[in-house]
């Protein structure tokens, strides 16, 4: 095991790659609850793939990663959730565009729960009957999203922004996708993406590091997953342009929903992927956080019925920057205010330093709960290949001039707007 220390936070993480390729991260913090999370690097945006050596790519319906997540809880002779609950723990899972994570949190019977997590993920049992049963359940999950104004515009924005990337599909898929998923699709995905070499295990809480690692190794020493094979995701060229620049959806609603997406080529510099993302995110902090002028506009302008939500995610070679807001009447005013704020390159170094201080401050909070620690480690391993131990030094190195220069060279011209509103009479 290799021990790494998160700088200035008094947090140690023990890491090891098992013989089967599973990346294991153990972290002891003074909490009674233990959170454990087993993550497959398979999410909703991966739909065409093969194992190295296979001739043809497999093509699966959208929503299959999420469907697979549901079905891994269905077993022939045991019920993972029942075992968790009987141990006083709670178990669950989630799927996003990039990963599927299975997890539990509990204060007792840690090893029984951990064994259950492993069995839940590594013992698939898919039948035509249980796949059919799940379609009704997942369709209802999808229908809830279909009634959410936010998801209506978000889902449409994906279609309008991406030409070729499978990211254009929603994680749940459409109702038609859900109906079309078969047992064979699930096994194809499972056999490709659920080899331990494509997975990350993170555990955090009041654990005995050596005993826990021994338990993990004992379990995996008895399981033969076969040799790990390289996964090839079909490469799809994605133009810088968006597909649809403006789209209006009609629904019988009172207010209007605006969703704006910018598709931005990831800048080459800085080379450090972590810092590159932080600099980009600082743009949002500078222009759209509570410290910006926009905070007062949304508070005092009666057209704005919500604050402006913002999000940035790296997808392939792009940063996808999105904004959402609910307005009373004037959608154009909202679009203009957001665009003007984004393209205003007259930055203030005082505010930059204030935000830098707050980001450093928030770092302390991200290591306060087992759930947050596992989440942070998993994301860092996925995005940066390992734990970023020197986050504090990196954040302290953030420099105003570098930031201004970084932002000034970004092209924000590829924009897609989706509006949801009542049909005009």
């Amino acid at each position, binding site marked *: 095991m290799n021990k790494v220390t998160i700088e200035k936070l008094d947090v140690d993480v023990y890491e090891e790659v098992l013989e089967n390729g599973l990346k294991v991260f153990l972290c002891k913090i003074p909490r009674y609850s233990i959170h454990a999370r087993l993550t497959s690097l398979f999410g909703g945006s991966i739909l065409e793939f093969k194992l190295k050596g296979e001739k043809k790519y497999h093509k699966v319906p959208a929503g299959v990663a999420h469907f697979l997540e549901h079905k891994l809880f269905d077993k022939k002779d045991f019920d993972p959730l*029942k075992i968790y609950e009987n141990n*006083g723990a*709670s178990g669950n899972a989630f799927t996003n565009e990039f990963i599927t994570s299975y997890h539990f949190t509990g204060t007792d019977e840690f090893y029984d729960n951990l064994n259950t997590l492993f069995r839940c993920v590594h013992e698939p049992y898919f039948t035509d009957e249980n796949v059919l049963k799940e379609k009704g*359940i997942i369709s209802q999950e999808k*229908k809830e999203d279909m*009634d959410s104004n936010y998801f209506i515009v978000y889902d449409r924005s994906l279609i309008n922004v991406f030409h070729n990337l499978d990211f254009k599909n929603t994680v749940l898929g459409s109702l038609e996708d859900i109906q079309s998923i078969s047992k064979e699709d699930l096994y194809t995905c499972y056999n490709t993406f659920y080899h331990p070499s494509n997975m990350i295990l993170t555990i955090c809480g009041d654990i005995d590091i050596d005993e826990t690692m021994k338990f993990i190794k004992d379990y995996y020493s008895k399981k033969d997953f076969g040799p790990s094979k390289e996964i090839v995701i079909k490469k799809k060229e994605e133009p810088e342009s968006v597909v649809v620049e403006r789209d209006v959806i009609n629904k019988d609603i009172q207010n209007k929903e605006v969703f704006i997406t910018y598709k931005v080529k990831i800048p080459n510099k800085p080379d450090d992927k972590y810092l590159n993302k932080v600099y980009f995110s600082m743009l949002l902090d500078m222009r759209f*956080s509570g410290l910006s002028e926009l905070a007062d506009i949304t508070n005092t302008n009666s057209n704005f*019925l919500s604050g402006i939500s913002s999000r940035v995610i790296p997808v392939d070679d792009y940063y996808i920057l999105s904004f959402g807001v609910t307005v009373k009447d004037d959608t154009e005013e909202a679009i203009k205010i957001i665009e003007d704020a984004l393209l205003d390159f007259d930055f203030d170094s005082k505010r930059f330093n204030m935000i830098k201080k707050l980001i450093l401050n928030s770092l302390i909070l991200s290591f306060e709960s087992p759930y947050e620690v596992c989440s942070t480690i998993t994301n860092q391993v996925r995005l940066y290949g390992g734990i970023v131990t020197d986050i504090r030094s990196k954040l302290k190195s953030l420099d105003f001039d570098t930031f201004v220069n970084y932002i000034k060279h970004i092209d924000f011209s590829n924009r897609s707007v989706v509006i949801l509103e009542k049909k005009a009479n």
Partner: protein
Amino acid sequence: MKCKKYSMDGYDLYTIETDRFKTVEMKMNIRIDDSKKIDKYASMLWRMLVSTSYKYDSIKEINEACAEIYDPSFTIRAIGSGSQVVFSLSASFVNEKYTEEGMHEANIKFLSEFLFKPRIIDGAFDEEIFNIKKKKLIDYYSSMKDYPREYADHRLEEEMITLGYKVSSIDELIKMAEELSPKDLYDFYKNLMKNGKLDIFICGNFSSKEMKKIFAKNIKFNGRVDDDIDHRVFQKKYNIKPNIVIEDAPNVQSNLIVGCKCLDITEFERNYVFILYSWILGGGANCLLNQSVRENNSLCYYIYAVRKALTGVMKIYAGINGEDFDKTYELIQKEMKNMELGKFSLELFEGVKKIYYSSLISVMDYQDDMVDSYIYQIYNNGDDLEKRKKMMEKVTREDVINFAKKVHIDTVYLLRGDAK
């Protein structure tokens, strides 16, 4: 975990010392008797308090001041707690051991001013901001139907009388908001400060003595002093033939809520048996409703029961196809009957008990849970964590079966979508 109580200048201060966290959690709660009149003011008041300041002219300035003291997070809400409404300022800030000395006092002073020093001009709330907030509140009420689950919940509350009076309809709320003036709201605020009961809870790695000094120096309150407030509401009757309300909406999914009342319950049942009952019926993946409605019949993605112990009310929520309403309702009734007949496994009964014990332990992992645990004890004359475990150990299957006979469906609300 030890909680110390200090009688301060017009209020009670509760300090909870723990060295397990890098942050400090604080709640300042002002309780006042609920009555229909409060509908008119509560939503506007917390919106005004949280976004205005006597000292700062804008949200940006407030946030800049926050940044100077290492960015505390805070919110103010009016929360129903049985017979009371609690105006609660809830905040979290980094322990000064990780920032700089004096930050505890700076945070407490800064945060408390939102509650105790609002922006008042000529005996009324700032009219300009008031009018904007009022317009936004009216827009919020008018567009509630855009948020089906929230709308359905409000509509059930309207139909099901649980607090001794009929909850205002959305149209009534709009009318009341339209009629409200900045002076009316300030008069209500003064009444709250005069008749409300203030309690402050603070949890973190600090010296209680030092904390007491900080509060003594910075906060004085002239409201109600006595602590003899009963939050409980006793349900006395229910619709023997449940009131079934169906309303159509242009949605894909239908939102079903089954409202139940618990009559003639003992305090032991209210505080312990009710928990097990609601969890066995609708509390997790293995509960009766989830197994029956979701797993065996594929009718929904979510179905769960939420209990309100103080009011003796339980609601069952499900998202279904409109055409499946009869079948779903029938299954819910069947599972409630199964509870009365004791048709639930011992394994499930013991399992939910273990979840309860586990939840008592994990209270110590979250500062807000630690604070809420003490609030529960103080507001409800409740037991401490240790005693809660002992009391729960006493609950038998028969207790749950007997309690099930006291739970009655009163109102059923369906916001029916097209299901296409």
